[in-house]
């Protein structure tokens, strides 16, 4: 299959407009007759469901939580980027586009990335109108701050709760449409399979998480907005319920999976403290605006941080990357931390952390200013660790965070299955091999509010002519039976180990061999180990309770079964990419001082995997750089 990204003709700045001019429209009376399923209710899902409903489509929106307001977009702290140039510091759409493309190490499409930057400014207008209380100057205008990988200030924020405030705005807009009876909201409902009829996505099988009953929903198009899959590492910054199952089921039904190994390790999370830990709490990247990262120069230094004099501290990011300093991009900051920790300079009880110190910022700006900027993060830090970060440096450590990889989508955000769209974090589109901070809320929102509602019509305009299938169609029967058998099979194993046990095992393998630094031997070993974990899971997992009831243990187990398969594909993808780019760092491809070496003549492509009964066939979408020339990505 030839992967056609359907990039519109014309100059970079004209492409989106040219696309919209040519795309097919649907008259308002006909939109009512068309129905769309949206799976997920985070920023992209809620934004899309609300906007599509406003346009007149009949929408069914699903989420596994008890309310759309819980979606994990809620946890994003630091902010959202937009090329408004309010700070008069030389920002522009072009600069934001270039920063994002370079931040992703030239492994994303020019046209997609440009559109992301182009639509960022109207998005801030939209959220402001929806009542998001963005931070403001005394004069009443909006404030900006900096984020990693960027030398201008283009990040908008609402204290340390930007994601929460944007999500609540999207949730409000969504529930307004629920009241108008244009959206039917299905909470505590999990998509278990995709139904494809004659090559087109036409419905889903859903498990009601309270009763365990399986239900069928049919529509003219299906939109997946199900977020990231970094819980494959088990310990991550994600919510415990975040999973890759919806996109994995879609992958098995024909949607290609792009760049699965591109996963971001965030440099500033709280370190792991015990085996029982379920989650690594993120501390916003915005802290790196004022906090300085360091480790003791002396190995295995046992002194407490405040007793170590200035000249015995190694501010390693400032030393290695003088022009970006503490605001080096995430992949680089994480690897630099790992390098110091591995070299014996780690701090904390398990020697697995580095310091993030606000001493100089407090001396310079005063405690009150720092509290205004990051107060809730300092409070959160104290709640979890019991330590006051105004007087002692924070201890932070890298943690699995964002998935740049996801379902392959074209310029219209359609997957390789007709009528199946993927939006937000669950697709692979704009971030290349590494996402810049504060671009996640942006991409999720832009996909949901602005792009999908202007591309889905191009497909639905044809679908209106064909009759919608019935939920008694044989493909629905098959899909539902498949889900039932699958769930029963998990329950019938009746082994001796819990689902969490296998998740911990999977997490260890993924973290050791497919995270911040990878090599051929490690990846080959990891694939074998995960195959073993899969065999053991299916012969020895124990899940109590039944399928037809609220059963949280069963939910864990069936999500994990998909993570295990996804883990194998991630390792295979990392193995085939014999270069280092962005978050994908292959030890075999580095300079003498440990910087990544890209191999452009062989790997300037997006890997897109076809499931092929578990044999995973690789397809390549070649990346053409027409407007910028890929350069060595340097932040020195």
């Amino acid at each position: 299959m030839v992967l056609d990204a359907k990039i519109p003709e014309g100059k970079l700045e004209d492409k989106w407009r040219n696309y919209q001019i040519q795309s097919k429209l649907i008259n308002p009376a006909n939109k009512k007759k068309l129905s769309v399923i949206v799976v997920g209710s985070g920023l992209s899902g809620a934004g899309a469901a609300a906007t599509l409903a406003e346009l007149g489509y009949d929408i069914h929106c699903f989420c596994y939580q008890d309310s759309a307001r819980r979606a994990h977009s809620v946890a994003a702290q630091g902010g959202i980027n937009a090329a408004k140039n309010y700070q008069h510091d030389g920002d522009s759409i072009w600069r934001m586009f270039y920063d994002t493309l370079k931040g992703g190490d030239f492994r994303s499409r020019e046209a997609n990335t440009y559109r992301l930057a182009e639509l960022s400014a109207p998005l801030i207008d939209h959220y402001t109108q929806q009542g998001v209380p963005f931070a403001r100057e005394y004069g009443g205008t909006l404030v900006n701050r900096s984020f990693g990988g960027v030398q201008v200030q283009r990040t908008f924020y609402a204290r340390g709760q930007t994601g929460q405030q944007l999500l609540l705005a999207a949730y409000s807009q969504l529930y307004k449409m629920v009241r108008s009876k244009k959206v039917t909201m299905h909470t505590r409902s999990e998509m278990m399979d995709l139904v494809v009829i004659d090559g087109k996505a036409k419905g889903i099988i859903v498990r009601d998480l309270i009763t365990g009953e399986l239900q069928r929903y049919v529509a003219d198009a299906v939109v997946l907005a199900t977020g990231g899959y970094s819980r494959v590492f088990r310990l991550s910054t994600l919510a415990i319920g975040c999973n890759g199952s919806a996109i994995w089921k879609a992958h098995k039904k024909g949607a290609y999976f792009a760049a699965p190994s591109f996963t971001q390790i965030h440099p500033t999370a709280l370190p792991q403290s015990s085996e029982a830990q379920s989650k690594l709490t993120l501390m916003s990247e915005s802290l790196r605006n004022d906090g300085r990262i360091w480790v003791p120069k002396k190995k295995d230094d046992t002194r407490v941080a405040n007793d170590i004099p200035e000249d015995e501290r190694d501010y390693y990011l400032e030393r290695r990357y003088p022009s970006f300093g503490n605001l080096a991009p995430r992949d680089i900051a994480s690897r630099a931390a790992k390098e110091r920790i591995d070299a014996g300079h780690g701090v904390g009880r398990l020697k697995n952390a580095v310091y993030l110190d606000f001493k100089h910022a407090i001396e310079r700006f005063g405690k009150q200013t720092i509290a205004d900027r990051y107060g809730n993060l300092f409070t959160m830090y104290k709640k979890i660790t019991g330590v006051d970060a105004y007087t002692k440096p924070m201890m932070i450590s890298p943690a699995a965070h964002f998935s740049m990889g996801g379902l392959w989508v074209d310029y219209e955000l359609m997957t390789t299955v007709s009528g199946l769209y993927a939006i937000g974090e669950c697709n692979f589109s704009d971030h290349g091999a590494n996402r810049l901070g504060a671009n996640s809320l942006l991409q999720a929102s832009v996909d949901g509010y602005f792009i999908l509602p202007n591309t889905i019509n191009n497909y639905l305009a044809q679908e209106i002519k064909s009759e919608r299938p019935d939920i008694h169609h044989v493909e629905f029967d098959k899909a539902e039976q498949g889900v039932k058998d699958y769930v029963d099979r998990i329950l019938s194993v009746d082994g001796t180990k819990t689902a969490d046990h296998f998740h911990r095992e999977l997490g260890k393998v993924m973290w050791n061999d497919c995270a911040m630094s990878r090599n051929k031997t490690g990846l080959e070993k990891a694939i074998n180990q995960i195959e073993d974990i899969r065999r053991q899971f299916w012969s020895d997992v124990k899940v109590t309770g039944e399928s037809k009831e609220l059963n949280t243990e069963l939910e864990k187990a069936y999500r994990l079964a998909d993570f295990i398969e996804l883990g194998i594909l991630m390792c295979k993808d990392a193995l085939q990419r014999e270069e280092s780019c962005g978050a994908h760092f292959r030890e075999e491809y580095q300079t003498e001082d440990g910087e990544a070496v890209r191999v452009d003549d062989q790997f300037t492509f997006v890997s897109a995997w076809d499931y092929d009964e578990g044999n995973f066939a690789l397809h390549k979408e070649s990346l053409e750089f027409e407007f910028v020339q890929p350069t060595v990505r340097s932040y020195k």
Partner: protein
Amino acid sequence: MKITFKIWRQEGPNDKGGFQSYEVNDLTEDMSFLEALDHLNEILVLKNKKVVAFEYDCREGICGQCGVFINGRAHGPHDNMTTCQLHMRSFEDGATITVEPWRARSFPIIKDLIVNRSAFDRIIENGAFISAKTGTAPEANAILISKTVSDRAMDAAACIGCGACVATCKNSSAALFTSAKINHLNGLPQGAPEAHQRVLDMTAQMEKEGFGHCSFTGACEVECPEGISIVNIAEMNARFIKAKIFG
């Protein structure tokens, strides 16, 4: 650490529930409270028993999905904290910890420690929005909002919708939740055109859902993980009177 959990178990909304005790020996102080429950559940699975159903998602105090009564207090022994942020170091070795679901008529129990809080969604549905369709917004800096006004809106907007305020209130009142949302939107110029209708619709829905009236005991603000002030309720009442007169 050795802990005895005394946990409310209830199969479904119509079953008669009751407490069951579970002794767990190998907990550590740096485990979070929910990790201790995870650990208990792994033990139960291996003993071929059904796990305790409880809610959680983000485990960093922002999604609002977790929340149980711990030793008679919503979200446990500390002020202004969610259940997921509570750590075992807050308990003595050998202690017995009583764990119950939120108890309020408007939050019916689904199973064990899980309750149905969809009444909150219906309050939001009835007016907690600004009616502006995607694509209709003016340039963001065209609306100037003073820092003081914006900060006050943010204070109110911080609500995570966990329901601790309702659970802890002797009247099971949702006044803190509802007032926080009203004050967030009505305090901003964008929310002004629908301000009166919003107060009337949201408070009417709050009553319809069966939440009790506020008698200003102040318990809600103590337990609110976001420290949302009870002043919000007074402000909502003032807005309500204004809406009745001018709305």
